[in-house]
């Protein structure tokens, strides 16, 4: 058996059914082998390697399986870097394969050679360079174990061309990773203490981060909330782990989060953070964050505990495991009590709930979100770009089923939306998949429209087109005296025409009452669709707090809240 066959066999052994990639000289032996496995392994040919990486990332986010992408050496591999980094920042289990020049040429500045091991060292959970065909199976096994266990993360695997064409003679059997011992079950003593803290608190709040989704701990979270009536807020990464229509759902917290969520955090006496890393987008000024509260921090990565926010009660472990045991302890000790705090929060949540009918011309971006909210079904998946449209989406769109919104939170990678939607649709073909994008973000990876067409992948792209690099323009307006520097995109190109150029349907929408009918038509289509919605050019996503600002200093009017909340 040659190396290329060993690689495919190893992937099939890991239950890989799809991968996203783009060929080139150094991976041709592998691509040749794919033709022998078309029944079991579907390769999706993208139009840019960045698209392959984002698609693999999204595939992982919606399924929990590892997402696989493949590129050739040199520029092909470096084109994966942004996508790998995006996956790394959001702890997504991506296996990224990159070709490499033959082992004998490594270090020689050969054609299309790049030192990817060094390049990816600090943006992957781990990386491997396979120098012998004998190590193919064991390396790939290790890679999948690392990607999927403990805190998930991307793994880069380098495949020199001669390794793909050489014979497997003495296959390495050992797949033990000496330095990898993830801590799954939380310390029971700590769990017991946590239960006491929770029962003795009067104003508890839960922050549910991405870790809840990666651990598939949504049911356990639900149980905890129902048992004790504790309000829940999520980070962007945790959004959809708790149904946002629930009376105790505060929605997303943080810089562009909901005022009521930040209010709850600021006024709580106990923060229960699960699977979240207290990133600066949610804490603002660390000197004042959670001043009045004790903090319980449950996370599988002990390095995150105490990194940003000092913790009163750390519990290192898998969210599902820890919550399950915590719930068991609480069930014995607790009685569901009517809490003044929970009632107050429920009231605020209700008051904050805004559904708008803004029939302005040009279209108010919030109107677009609210109309979209009417059409999107519970099981549908939405991927977002990065920028204002992303914040409108995470702030206003209501999600209730886990893994139905994917967004580049940690990295904030523009261009994530379209290829991510592509990957999600390949993973879950029986639901509608949307790309909620901005004109700036969409243009960065729109060549993947070609992939959508030729690979028959249906994605409905909604472009919140405000002619500007919206978020940067907003910051220029708010913090740089409205000195706009390089932010005017001027609605070039006409995205509906771009869709047509890819032989796909494109719509231009400029009136609010056109939104729903166009969306409905898009739902009826068999093929990918692009809906270019022209919205008000200089609208801001508010309320917000500035970088390093106190979360209680959110400024900008909310739609509904009577007076200031803080």
């Amino acid at each position, binding site marked *: 058996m040659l190396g290329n066959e060993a690689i495919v066999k190893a992937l099939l052994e890991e239950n890989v059914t799809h991968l996203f990639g783009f060929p080139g000289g150094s991976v041709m032996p592998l691509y040749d082998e794919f033709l022998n496995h078309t029944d079991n392994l579907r390769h999706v040919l993208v139009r840019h390697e960045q698209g392959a990486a984002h698609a693999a990332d999204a595939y992982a986010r919606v399924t929990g399986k590892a997402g696989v992408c493949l590129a050739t050496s040199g520029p092909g591999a470096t084109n994966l870097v942004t996508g790998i980094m995006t996956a790394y920042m959001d702890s997504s289990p991506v296996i990224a394969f990159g070709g490499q020049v033959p082992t004998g040429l490594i270090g020689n500045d050969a054609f299309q050679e790049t030192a990817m*091991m*060094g390049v990816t*060292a*600090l943006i992957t*959970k*781990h990386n491997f360079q396979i120098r012998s065909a004998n190590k193919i199976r064991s390396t790939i096994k290790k890679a999948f174990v*690392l990607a999927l266990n403990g805190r998930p993360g991307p793994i880069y695997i380098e495949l020199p061309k001669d390794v793909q064409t050489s014979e497997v003679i003495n296959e390495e059997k050992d797949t033990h*990773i*000496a*330095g*990898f011992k993830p801590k799954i079950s939380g310390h029971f003593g700590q769990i017991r203490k946590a239960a006491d803290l929770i029962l003795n608190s009067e104003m508890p709040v839960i922050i549910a981060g991405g870790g809840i989704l990666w651990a598939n701990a949504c049911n356990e979270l639900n149980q905890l909330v129902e048992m004790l009536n504790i309000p829940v807020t999520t980070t962007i990464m945790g959004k959809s782990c708790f149904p946002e229509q629930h009376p105790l759902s505060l929605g997303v917290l943080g810089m562009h989060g909901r005022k009521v969520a930040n209010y709850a955090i600021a006024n709580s006496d106990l923060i229960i953070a699960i699977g979240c890393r207290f990133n600066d987008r949610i804490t603002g000024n660390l000197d004042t*964050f*959670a*001043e*009045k*509260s*004790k*903090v319980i921090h449950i996370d599988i*990565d*002990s*390095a995150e505990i*105490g*990194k940003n*926010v*000092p*913790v*009163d009660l750390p519990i290192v472990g898998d969210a599902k495991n820890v919550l399950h045991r915590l719930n068991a302890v609480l069930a014995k000790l607790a009685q569901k009590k009517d809490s003044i705090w929970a009632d107050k929060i429920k009231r605020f949540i209700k008051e904050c709930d805004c559904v708008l009918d803004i029939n302005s011309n040009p279209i108010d971006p919030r109107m677009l979100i609210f109309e979209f909210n009417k059409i999107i079904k519970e099981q549908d998946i939405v991927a977002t770009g990065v920028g204002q449209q992303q914040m409108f989406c995470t702030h206003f769109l209501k999600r209730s089923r886990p893994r139905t919104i994917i967004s580049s939170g940690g990295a904030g990678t523009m261009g994530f939306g379209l290829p991510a939607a592509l990957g999600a649709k390949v993973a879950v073909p029986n639901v509608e998949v949307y790309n909620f994008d901005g004109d700036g973000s969409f243009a960065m990876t729109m060549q993947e429209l070609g992939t959508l067409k030729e690979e028959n992948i249906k994605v409905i792209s909604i472009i919140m087109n405000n002619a500007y690099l919206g978020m940067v323009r907003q910051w220029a307006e708010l913090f740089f005296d409205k000195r706009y520097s390089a932010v005017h995109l001027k609605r070039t190109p006409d995205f509906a025409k771009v869709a047509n150029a890819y032989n796909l349907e494109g719509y231009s929408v400029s009136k609010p009452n056109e939104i729903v009918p166009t969306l409905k038509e898009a739902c009826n289509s068999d093929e990918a669709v692009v809906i270019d919605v022209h919205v008000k050019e200089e609208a801001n996503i508010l309320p917000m707090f500035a970088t390093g600002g106190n979360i209680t200093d959110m400024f900008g009017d909310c739609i509904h809240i009577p007076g200031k909340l803080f």
Partner: protein
Amino acid sequence: MAKVKQSIERVHIIGVLVEDHPGVLSKLSGMISTRGFNIDTITVGKTMNKGISHIVISLTGDDQTIEQLKKQVNKLVDTIKIIDLNPKHSVLREHCLVKVESSAEARDDIINISKLHKVNVVDMNEQSMIIEVVGRPEKVNNFLRMMKKYNIKNVCRTGVNAMRRDSNNNH
């Protein structure tokens, strides 16, 4: 809110057992510097176990910072084990070669000082001599301070090496 521990900076020494692959030291030091930790010295060598190397890092920082550093180092897949080499319960040694200019007048002085400090002259010619210092980092520092008036031409230090003492009190 939990109280932040007091920020007193001191020298910390940690030992790290790692898998011996190309790029491991590079990744470790890259990670440390990227996260803003300041390494004072780093040294690496093989162990008696094939495929496992031992790295000794000394750095200055407060307890909280070093705690975070240890966690980050532990996260690396190549890291097998972290060993706390607190100077209080470890043997510390550093090796230093120093080349000192030695005119006829200075030569005797330097040789006397070397004898007193129990260091060895390992090379000598008309212009200079090379002296080898082995001992705790403070011993090296002290000797170099004594040599300052005699025009030091070159100094090569290895960085501190350390090993825990076995005793009933260590946990």
